[in-house]
């Protein structure tokens, strides 16, 4: 009997090899997204997947057998904004990395959250520039030695969930690749939200982060995620000191606010 992965039906025929290294967290994220679609029984032809440059940009493109838009570095959210405005009936999903979405593309991220445009943004946050060989990112922990911070990183890491929350996102969640089920649940939730949803996935880069910094291989990194993470509920009762170096996972924001394309239509009806 030939065994076929249950999600293979969503993979573009002929797109077999991946850009990811052994142990990369991108595969878990890819599966969480496809599994969410599968479990919600949504039609992949209703989706447009938009991604940027870097390893995570290759999660949907060209592998998801759907409309895919593999864009310039940092701009997937802006491209996705154009797609959503032209085709508000589409389910627009952005999947990209932390360098792409939070460094070079940071402005697009906050403005999309501010506009509350109906899209789901999934940020694979490995805390490093993996594809280019392990340079410091705006998400790299303080003090970490990378190929461009040989004496340790002196800049604080971005809290992307707090950022998107402050900018006005309707839904914000954080998970790690260890929490594949929680992540899938959140993707399902995000896909059913009307406004802007942001999911941060702390994800292992076993080569450029794990090996270079001595944190260890993929298994060791995921064990670390397991041991260092706390649920939102549990974290609520802890002090700032106790939460130091912890990863708070779960839903951080879930509210209903007017979505941009719906607001445009509403305004149109008023002026008709």
């Amino acid at each position: 009997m030939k065994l076929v992965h249950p999600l293979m039906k969503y993979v573009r025929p002929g797109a077999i090899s991946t850009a990811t290294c052994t142990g990369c967290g991108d595969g878990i994220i890819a599966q969480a997204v496809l599994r969410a679609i599968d479990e919600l029984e949504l039609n992949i032809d209703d989706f447009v997947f938009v991604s940027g440059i870097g390893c995570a940009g290759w999660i949907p493109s060209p592998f998801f057998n759907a409309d895919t838009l593999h864009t310039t570095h940092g701009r997937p959210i802006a491209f996705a904004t154009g797609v959503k405005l032209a085709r508000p009936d589409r389910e627009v999903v952005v999947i990209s990395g932390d360098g792409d979405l939070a460094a070079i593309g940071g402005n697009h991220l906050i403005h999309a959250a501010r506009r509350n445009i109906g899209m789901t943004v999934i940020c694979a946050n490995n805390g490093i520039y993996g594809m280019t060989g392990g340079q410091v990112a705006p998400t790299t922990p303080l003090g970490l030695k990378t190929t461009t911070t040989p004496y340790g990183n002196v800049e604080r890491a971005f809290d992307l969930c707090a950022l998107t929350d402050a900018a006005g996102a309707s839904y914000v969640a954080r998970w790690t690749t260890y929490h594949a089920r929680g992540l899938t649940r959140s993707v399902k939730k995000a896909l059913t939200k009307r406004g802007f949803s942001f999911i941060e996935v702390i994800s292992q880069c076993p080569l450029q982060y794990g090996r270079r910094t001595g944190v260890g291989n993929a298994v060791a990194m995921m064990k670390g995620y397991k041991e260092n993470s706390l649920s939102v509920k549990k974290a609520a009762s802890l002090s700032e000191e106790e939460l130091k170096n912890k990863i708070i996972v779960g839903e951080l924001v879930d509210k209903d606010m007017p979505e941009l394309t719906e607001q445009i239509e509403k305004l149109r009806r008023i002026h008709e």
Partner: protein
Amino acid sequence: MNKRLLSGIHLLQGDEACAEGAMAAGCDLFAGYPITPATEVSERLSWRLFDVGGIFVQGADELDSLTIVIGAACGGWKAMTATSGNGICLMQECIGYAAITETPCVIVDVQRAGPGTGVATKTMQGDVYQVRYGSNADYSIIALVPDSPQEMFDLTLEAFNLSEIYRVPTFILADEIVGHMREKVVIPEKVSVVERRKPKVPPKDFIPFKVNSDTDVPPMPAFGEGYRMPVSGLTHTETGSPSTSYEVQKALVERLCNKVEKKVDDLTRIETAFMEDAEVLVLSYGSTARAARRAVIRARKDGIKAGYLRLITLWPFPDPYLKRVVSEGPRAIIVPEMNVGKMVREVERAVGGKAEVISFPKPGVELHRPDEIYNLIRRVR
């Protein structure tokens, strides 16, 4: 009544006429960022588009704006942005992206004096290379240069059509003078509008970037039409798969350039006067041509065999046309332009020594005066 086409005679600013050209062409979405001297295009389209069910969006910057335009175009819409040279700087990465993904879009550059911030309210023609060569590596674009508000209307409409036919970023290379002047603009009762060529085969038989022998431009389905389009800025095969092979790179880059460059005769738009027996030609483009025209008319009145040639298509550069022109005998070609002398190099290359080419540069802020050009004609003849 067609709310898109304001048929009739109007007194319009160039930027406003540009907006009306976009409306006539069927523009669905405009994204732009405020910048002098192009802001009026945004302002007009913010209500004109809204009134016909289209969308105006103010980007977080120029880069954001062109990116939104390309996304909307992938969604099947006609889309445009307008800016000045400083904004084009920010748009460069997406100009290359639109080129490699073959996404139709119209980019209006109302040029101002530079470099850098320069003089926001004064004119220049400094971006002629920037729009052609600004993004990384090799591709082709189309650039049309209006010399009046009427042409801001006519050429913007045409830019949309050409962008759809050739699937390339198409530029309106205006300048502050043309953008801000008010003149009579005639909007006809009927205009010719080109719609995007869609695949005729069902999704299972469709190869996204495959062309046949009679065209270098593949048909383009929109997202959501069931074609599962793999759009990517990576070098890609006919099927849209990323590739690092030399053969794939060569085929793609050559096609991206050839689909425009090989059609140079079809794309050449020229205005001429007094060419038959002309010994001294004044070759100009954009607002500079208005002074050139007056200078040539004055020279003719004085019995000087001067000719007037205005390039409306700047890119692809009309080499074949110019080669034919110089074979007919003008001794000298004067090229006034509001930059340090850029297009004059293209002219020199195209005429290949068959006529003397004289550059008359003025680096922005101040237009060429007709008498300056007239005096040069007298000296040269």
